[in-house]
């Protein structure tokens, strides 16, 4: 029996030895690069790959090269969890950056919490960092912040009666729940919540119903994908007659193209990335934003989007923490992530603390309005 046991041991230990022998820092990632969320996961993957190469070309991290291991979960949260386990047990990564959808991130969190590996999530849902979890951080703006930003703007314009029209996906549902919970704090009354299916092609029936509500002043659409563009077109078609707000999920060049002239006057809370060129030169973020835009547009030939920006921030936050820690040891990197202070990213200026693993506040969002087919800063 003994030789067999030794052999088994050797086989089991081999991957671990192989990993240790290489002087590489293994960073894992699980993204939705196929399936319904792939239009979000794809730019994230491109960004990670482009920036990993840039980091290595510039000499790596602490003298070691980084190597990305990226898995595709097909937009399915149960796959995310399987790949998370594989990253931990088989690939033995030291840190993970990824999780396209909120559901995908939430499914992976227990795996990384148990293994003690820092996880920088790229999803929007506030549930990822509230309550604070020891090993979990995230740069993206939360849906609750988007609600707060929209409600602040509504209040300033005196439009305190609003209605929601939302998709049925996780992003839309989470945003509506968050908005409902903070509406009172901003003195906003939500008069109606309408919804539509994932591939519905006409929302005029819902919008007509909303339009008929007495005293309604504004309509908010929470969704990602093609839904916001169709809602925007339908609102113009039936002449809604009141301001339409979108969420940051619509903050993409694609939305402007798909919605066309109907988007004129639509407002949404968006990241500075979309309006980088319009920022004053004194803005501390401007350089980072323009650099990222130039790098990605050169590498992919496509315009930058919010979601690719999240991946940029996630990877660079990790690398920054590794540099400050002077090593890639998971526990040390986690401690340094938590001490991140004044880090200039595409989402805003990030300052983490033991009670705040998001690190940005409402000032990271800008209220944008579509003017002549382009994003313009309102405040």
């Amino acid at each position, binding site marked *: 029996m003994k030789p067999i046991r030794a052999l088994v041991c050797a086989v089991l230990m081999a991957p671990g030895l192989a990993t240790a022998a290489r002087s590489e820092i293994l960073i894992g990632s699980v993204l939705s690069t196929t399936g319904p969320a792939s239009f979000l996961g794809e730019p994230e993957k491109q960004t990670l790959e482009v920036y990993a190469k840039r980091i290595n070309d510039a000499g790596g991290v602490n003298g070691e090269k980084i190597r990305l291991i990226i898995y595709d979960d097909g937009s399915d949260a149960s796959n995310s969890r399987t790949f998370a386990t594989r990253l931990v047990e088989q690939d033995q990564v030291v840190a993970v950056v990824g999780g396209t959808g909120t559901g995908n991130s939430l499914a992976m969190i227990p795996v990384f919490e148990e293994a003690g590996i820092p996880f920088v999530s790229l999803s929007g849902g506030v549930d990822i960092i509230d309550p604070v979890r020891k090993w979990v951080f995230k740069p993206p703006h939360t849906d609750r912040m988007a609600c707060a930003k929209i409600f602040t703007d509504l209040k300033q314009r005196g439009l305190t009666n609003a209605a929601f029209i939302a998709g049925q996906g996780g992003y839309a549902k989470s945003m509506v729940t968050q908005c409902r919970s903070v509406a009172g704090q901003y003195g906003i009354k939500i008069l109606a919540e*309408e919804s539509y299916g994932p591939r519905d092609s006409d929302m*005029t*029936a*819902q919008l007509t119903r909303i339009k008929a509500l007495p005293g309604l002043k504004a309509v908010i659409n929470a969704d990602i994908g093609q839904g916001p563009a*169709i809602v925007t077109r339908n609102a113009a*078609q*039936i*002449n809604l007659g009141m301001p339409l707000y979108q969420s940051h999920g619509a903050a993409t060049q694609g939305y402007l193209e798909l919605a066309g002239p109907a988007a004129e006057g639509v407002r949404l809370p968006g990241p500075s990335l979309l309006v980088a060129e319009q920022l004053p030169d004194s803005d501390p973020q401007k350089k980072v934003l323009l650099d990222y835009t130039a790098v990605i547009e050169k590498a992919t030939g496509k315009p930058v989007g919010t979601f690719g920006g999240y991946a940029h921030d996630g990877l660079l936050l990790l690398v920054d923490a590794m540099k400050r820690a002077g090593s890639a040891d998971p526990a040390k990197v986690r401690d340094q992530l938590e001490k991140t202070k004044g880090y200039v990213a595409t989402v805003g200026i990030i300052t983490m603390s033991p009670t705040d693993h998001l690190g940005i506040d409402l000032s990271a969002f800008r209220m944008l309005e579509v003017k002549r087919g382009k994003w313009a800063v309102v405040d």
Partner: protein
Amino acid sequence: MATALQILFSGLTVGAIYALVAIGFTLVYSSSEVVNFAQGEFVMLGGMISATAVAAGLAPLPAASLAIVATVVTGILLYGLAVAPARDASPIVVIIITIGASIFIRGLASVGMGKEFHTLPPLLATPTLDLGGASVQTQGLVVMAGSVAIVLTLWLFLRMTKLGRGIRATAANRLAAQLAGINPRVIVGLTFAISALIGALGGILITPITLTSFDVGTLLAVKGFAAAVLGGLTHPAGPVLGGLMIGLLEAVGAGYISSQYKDVFAFVVLLGVLFLRPQGILGGRAVERV
């Protein structure tokens, strides 16, 4: 009144889209008792190839022609490579093959044409029309006219041409048709090609309203299939009736009852009708199909 009219138009627009997707199901089903679940992929290919070609600088008309030709070729390949080799298998096996093929086509499209959403310009210059205080998208009217034109052409083709009569003969009795000198493999292959043609046309017409991406086919196919079953899978006008009914039910449900449950509302009616008439509203007995 204007509200009611607006909701009616919404229902008719959506219904016309479902109808256009649904028409494609009937032909293959009639001649071979197979529900071709790759039908939604034909719709996707029509819209996606056109949109990609337009984005690459082609004018809309050549782009649409290219999309139609490419989709018909895909339909013939689907039959020749995947369905024909399994001709001795039961319809359920062939249905599963078409599901597999649809996943394959979707994967290829996502790799070849990207994962972003696309759109096409509407056919008419005026995007919306004002009718009695309500507003309707002109493209919705185009889709409705397109569905009617396709159904009429299909009907004439099946009644008036030799090939059409061959399809009907195969649908009525495959063995007898074979004895009369009709090659059922050619006929079924032809129905796949025509279904692909109808799907591609539909995809091009609906894209200005629905927008398109590589995964648009699946859910459209589900709704289109429901519409075809409701109206009757074996009657050429069945899908149009079924599509318009489901579209109207959804719009009335969303506009007057609750948008959360609009799909439930439509499917309850679907189940009720099928309980009373399993062959669909217009569906006839087996011998009379097509």
